[in-house]
C-alpha cells in the first residue's frame, strides 16, 4: 500500500472522498485517509491497472484531484464509539477516530482482517489516545480469532454501552453491524460504497434500491435508518453498466 500526502489543505472531513484522475488513463474515487487542515493523504493499494499506475507516481508527479465529495462521519462530544473497520475501511475510520478524540470521545476500534499481515494501518491506530485497539483476524494470527463483528458482539454481551457505532469495510461485515446496531438500539453510521462515475449525483450509476438515492451525494456515510431502507444492502450492487452482482 502506498500513502500519498498532498501538502495543501483540502478541508476534507472523515468519510469524504475525492476523485483521483490519471490523465489519459482513468479516474477513481478514493477515501481521504487524513486531513489535518494543512495537508491530506490518500492510501492506495495496487489491486488493479489504475491503482498500479497510481502507485508508481513519485513526489512531484501530477495527478488530477476533484472533491471532496460525500457525507461525513459525525459524533457528539464525549461519546463512547465503536468503530468496525475491515480491509481498506481502516483509513477513513482512523481519520474519524483522530478527530473524535479531540471532542473527548472514547473509542473501541475493532479492526478486522484475514491475518496479521493484512491489518493495514496497524502501526498507527494503537497509538491513538483513549482508544482500545481490538484487532481480529480470521486465522487468529493477531488479536481475536474470528471476525471483528464477533469481537464487538462479545463486548456488547459483556454490557459495554456504546453511544455510536461507525463502520467502513466489506459490505457483508457492515450488514452485520447494521443488524446488530438496530437490535441493540445503537446509532450507527455506515459507509455505503457503490460504483461511482461523476461523484456529484448526476450520472446515477451509484443509486441504490429501493430508495433510488445516489450514494455519492447522500452517502457514502449514511445513518443506519437510511441503510435499513436500502434493500440491496448486503445483497447486491451494480457495475458500470447497471447490472446487478450478488455479494
Amino acid at each position, binding site marked *: 500500500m502506498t500513502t500519498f500526502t498532498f501538502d495543501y489543505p483540502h478541508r476534507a472531513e472523515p468519510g469524504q472522498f475525492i476523485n483521483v484522475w490519471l490523465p489519459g488513463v*482513468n479516474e477513481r474515487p478514493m477515501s481521504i485517509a487524513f486531513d489535518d487542515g494543512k495537508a491530506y493523504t490518500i492510501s492506495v493499494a495496487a489491486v488493479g491497472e489504475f491503482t498500479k499506475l497510481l502507485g508508481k507516481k513519485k513526489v512531484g508527479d501530477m495527478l488530477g484531484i476533484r472533491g471532496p465529495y460525500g457525507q461525513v462521519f459525525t459524533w457528539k462530544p464525549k461519546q463512547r464509539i465503536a468503530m468496525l473497520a475491515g480491509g481498506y475501511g481502516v483509513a477513513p475510520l482512523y481519520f474519524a477516530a483522530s478527530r473524535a478524540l479531540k471532542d473527548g470521545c472514547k473509542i473501541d476500534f475493532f479492526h478486522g482482517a484475514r491475518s496479521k499481515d493484512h491489518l493495514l494501518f496497524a502501526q498507527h491506530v494503537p497509538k491513538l489516545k483513549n482508544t482500545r485497539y481490538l484487532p481480529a483476524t480470521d486465522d487468529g494470527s493477531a488479536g481475536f480469532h474470528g471476525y471483528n463483528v464477533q469481537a464487538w458482539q462479545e463486548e456488547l454481551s459483556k454490557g459495554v454501552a456504546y453511544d455510536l457505532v461507525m463502520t467502513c469495510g466489506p459490505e457483508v461485515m457492515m450488514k452485520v453491524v447494521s443488524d446488530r446496531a438496530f437490535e441493540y438500539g445503537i446509532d450507527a453510521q455506515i459507509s455505503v460504497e457503490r460504483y461511482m462515475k*461523476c461523484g456529484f449525483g*448526476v450520472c*446515477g450509476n451509484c443509486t441504490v434500491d429501493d430508495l433510488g438515492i445516489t450514494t455519492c451525494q447522500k452517502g457514502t456515510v449514511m445513518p443506519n435508518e437510511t441503510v435499513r431502507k436500502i434493500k440491496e444492502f448486503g445483497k447486491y450492487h451494480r457495475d458500470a*453498466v447497471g447490472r446487478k452482482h450478488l455479494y
Partner: protein
Amino acid sequence: MADLSVNFCGVTFKNPLVLASGILGITASSWRNVVRNGAGGITTKSLWLNEHQGHPNPVIIANDHYMLNAVGVPDAGVKKAEEEISLFLKKRGASKPPLIANIIAGSVRDYGVIAEEIGRMKPDILEVNISCPNVESEFGTPFACVAGDAARVTKEVKKALKKVAPKLPVTVKLSPNVENIVEIAKAVVDAGADGLTVMNTVGPGMAINIESRTPILANRVGGLSGPSLKPLAVKFIYSIRQALPEIPIIGTGGVLTGEDAIEMMMAGATLVGIGTGVYYRGVEVFGLAAAEMNAWCTANKVKKLSSLIGTVK
C-alpha cells in the same frame, strides 16, 4: 393551485417536468426517486439491445457555466430494461407517472429490433435517441444529422411497433448540431413520428486541463449542456412549432427553474425535460420548478398551464 397537467400524445402528466434521458435514470428505484421529488414523468437512460460499455472516467465535468459529458451511454441490455421497466410500472402507484422509454442503436435495423423489444414492455411513450454526440467514435455521425437517416430510423421504429404496440407514441430526439433542424423535424414527422424531443446536447465540445495538457473527458469530447443553452433550445422549439404546429414537443436544454420551463412552453413545448438542472439544484429541482410554475401561474391568473403552450408566435 393552477392546473399544471399536460397531455402529450394522449398521455397525461400531472406536470410537464420530466427527467431527461441520460441523467440518473438507470433503475426503477431511481425513477421513483425522481417522481417522489416532483417530476411529472421520467425518461429512462438510453436502452440498448445488448450490453454497451460507456467511456472510462472522467465522463462528466461541470461548473457554474456548463456541463460537458461523454458518459458513453452504458447499459446492460434488454433483460435489465425489462426487469426495471416492469418493476416501475408495477410499483408506480395510483397517480401513474408516465414512463418514457428512450432507445438507442448503432444501425437502422437494430433500432427496429430494440423498439420491438421495448414496445412489448408497455412504456407510455417511446423516445428514439438518434442524436447522441458521445458515441461518434463508435458509430459515426448521428442519424439525427442527416434528414434521410433520421427518417429511415423513424420508419423502421414505427414498422417494428406495428406488431407489438401500434398505439405507442413515438418521439424522436433531435440534434441541435445541424444546419436546418426544421428540415430534419419535417422528415421525421413525415416518416411517422408522433412527437419530437428538442434537443440533445450541443457540440461535441472539448475542455483541456492545461496543467496536464490533456482533454479532461476520457472520450476527449462530449455533449455540452447547461443554462446558457436554453436560448438555443427555445429558438429551435419555436421554429419547429411554427413549421409543425400540430406536433407535440418535449423541450430540453438548460431548464433550471419553473420560469425557464414556462418560457419553453410558450415557445411550443408540451413537456419540458430537465437533465443538467439536477446538477445545479439537485434532484429536488423537479419539485422546486413545479412550485415556481404554480406560483407564476397564480400570480398571472393562468388557470391552466397548458394554455401557454405555443403562445409566442
